[in-house]
């Protein structure tokens, strides 16, 4: 995965609460290997009629090139299905802005280069008002923690490690392997203190 520092693109509003992981990608698409791309399944049942045609009035269909989503509280709630993040990333989304996110979703997002950006409800309301049913240019500076969207300018702080992972495209496995010695020491202690952890040890 490659990291990123700045992003410029178009933001679109999705003024709904609690868009959960089952909405982000319905379960029936999750057996598809990732190499085939998950973009077409993003919000599949919201975006399409039962016949499978795209609904003309759905924000992402009106503005398929948008790369930043602004939405309401509890985005990505529900399951650990990382496929929800794959669908967003494969559809070209770089950042989602909301007042709150599902915990597991946020972690998954950062692991895939997607920024889950938390702003206060009032700020999100202001952004959604500006966006209306249209798009607006957005600029995100990860290094500085700046967001500019139309007339609005916000500062944001990210957990340091999230920022580093997003900036560098880092992978946790690399970070952890450097701690191999501490892990081995811990493991030995664990085995002494609680041998039953290893069944039939």
């Amino acid at each position, binding site marked *: 995965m490659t990291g990123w520092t700045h992003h410029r693109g178009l933001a679109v509003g999705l003024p709904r609460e609690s868009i*959960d992981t089952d909405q982000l990608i319905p379960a029936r698409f999750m057996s598809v290997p990732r190499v085939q791309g998950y973009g077409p399944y993003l919000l599949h049942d919201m975006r399409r009629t039962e016949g499978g045609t795209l609904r003309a009035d759905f924000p992402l269909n009106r503005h398929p090139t948008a790369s930043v989503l602004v939405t309401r509280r*509890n985005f990505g709630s*529900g399951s650990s299905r990382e496929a929800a993040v794959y669908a967003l990333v494969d559809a070209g989304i770089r950042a989602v802005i909301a007042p709150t996110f*599902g915990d597991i979703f946020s972690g*998954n997002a950062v692991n895939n280069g997607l920024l889950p950006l938390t702003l206060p409800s009032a700020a999100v309301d202001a952004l959604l008002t500006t966006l209306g049913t249209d798009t607006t240019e957005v600029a995100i500076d990860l290094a500085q923690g700046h967001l500019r969207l139309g007339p609005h300018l916000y500062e944001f702080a990210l957990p340091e490690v999230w920022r580093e992972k997003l900036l560098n495209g880092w992978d946790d496995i690399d970070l952890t392997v450097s701690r191999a010695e501490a*892990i081995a020491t811990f493991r030995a202690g664990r085995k002494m203190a609680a041998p039953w952890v290893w069944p039939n040890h």
Partner: protein
Amino acid sequence: MTPAARHFPNSEVSGAQTLFDKLWRAHEITRRSDGVSLLWVDRHLVHEGSHHAFAQLAARGIDLAEPHLTYAVVDHYAPTRNRENIADADIKRMIETLEKNAKKHGLKLFGLRDPNQGIVHVLGPEQGLTLPGLTVNCGDSHTSTHGAFGALAFGIGATEVAHVMATQTIWQSRPKTMRITVSGALGAAVSAKDIALHWIALLGADGARGHAIEYAGAAVRALSMEGRMTLCNLSIEGGARLGLIAPDTTTFAYLQGRPYAPQGHDWARALDDWARLPSDPDATFDREVEIDAASIAPTLTWGTSPEEALPITATLPDPAGLDPNRAARARDALDYMGLTPGRPLAGTPVDQVFIGSCTNGRIEDLRLAAAVIKGRRAKVPGLVAPGSALVKAQAEAEGLDRIFSEAGLEWVAAGCSMCVGMNGDLVDPGKRCASSTNRNFKGRQGRGARTHLMSPAMVAAAAVTGTLCDVRPLLEGCA
């Protein structure tokens, strides 16, 4: 000295600790400058959905760090009928991929034909793989279930699954602590499911976000392990990272003699260890919530988020009286669910029922449902899918399967089934399903499906009346 104390000479070692503090400390290998901890993982459970992680591992050419702490389970895609001839190529491939990966890495596999097969969160405890004091990870959010044993158990994403496979560790920021104390005693036919739906409605679907919940109080102590698992299972639906219940004699009695539980000398040592886990009496929590058990009625969801739950005696909300954001959300949910604002919930006709899932697919759940159904006929079709093959065998030994079948409900093999529909057990568009599962999101049980979450007893009541209804009068006079 505990490992944590060894690594963090400055951290507070003395002082009152919560169950969560003790578990965290016992598994913390190291801590980064930003406060994020590297935790040791004692149990890693994988299922068909873990194919992304196996693929990531293969792409990097690495093996599993601890294959003997990793257990593979077929559940999400497990067909509940005709297992010998799996018609759907995608389902067949998903199961075979897990089988191949388990074989390649030397993992113990609970496959389709294993007499112990079942939903990962039913199987783990049943096998004694889940124990007090352990960390348990699985690429599934309902991993919180295992917290019922006093284990630090939480769901992780696919990239994290690959990380656990490669290192047997996980990076986690330390959640805040929250105690939900349910005092007093639950009323008749009111269960752990009702406690959970009650508190989630009270605090919201993100009400416990960023928190580790410990459930306490007389009503929680009185729950069986099955009930405790239901309660911890639903923690995630209130946004919590994980749920916990302190281990006690109920826990130990459940575990003794299970295949993977410690035995002999180890059992005695483990009991000693586990007895030290409960929160110290003067330990403090970041948040405290108190609930009077007697105030909880049989509760069910009416909308498309688990927070949209009400007692069965209530009327549906009227968006006209809500603030604009909430009103829009409620209108959308009522519309999707095909419900009229302001009308009583009870009496709403249902099209079908489902009893099963990692929330309520255990033997006690089936017993409760059967007690309601016994001697009655179901007015609507329905499916009963036990949580594991062992639950199925036990239920059949008790004759519960016949009670369901004679009432007109279908009795099938174990798996996730209609909870998520990945195996093809779907609710048709527009159909209303009374369900003992955990998620009422739009499309969860199939595109356009209308899900009402409730306890298995309440599902049984819906089956025999064909409507959403209060189970309590139905149980009067029943043994």
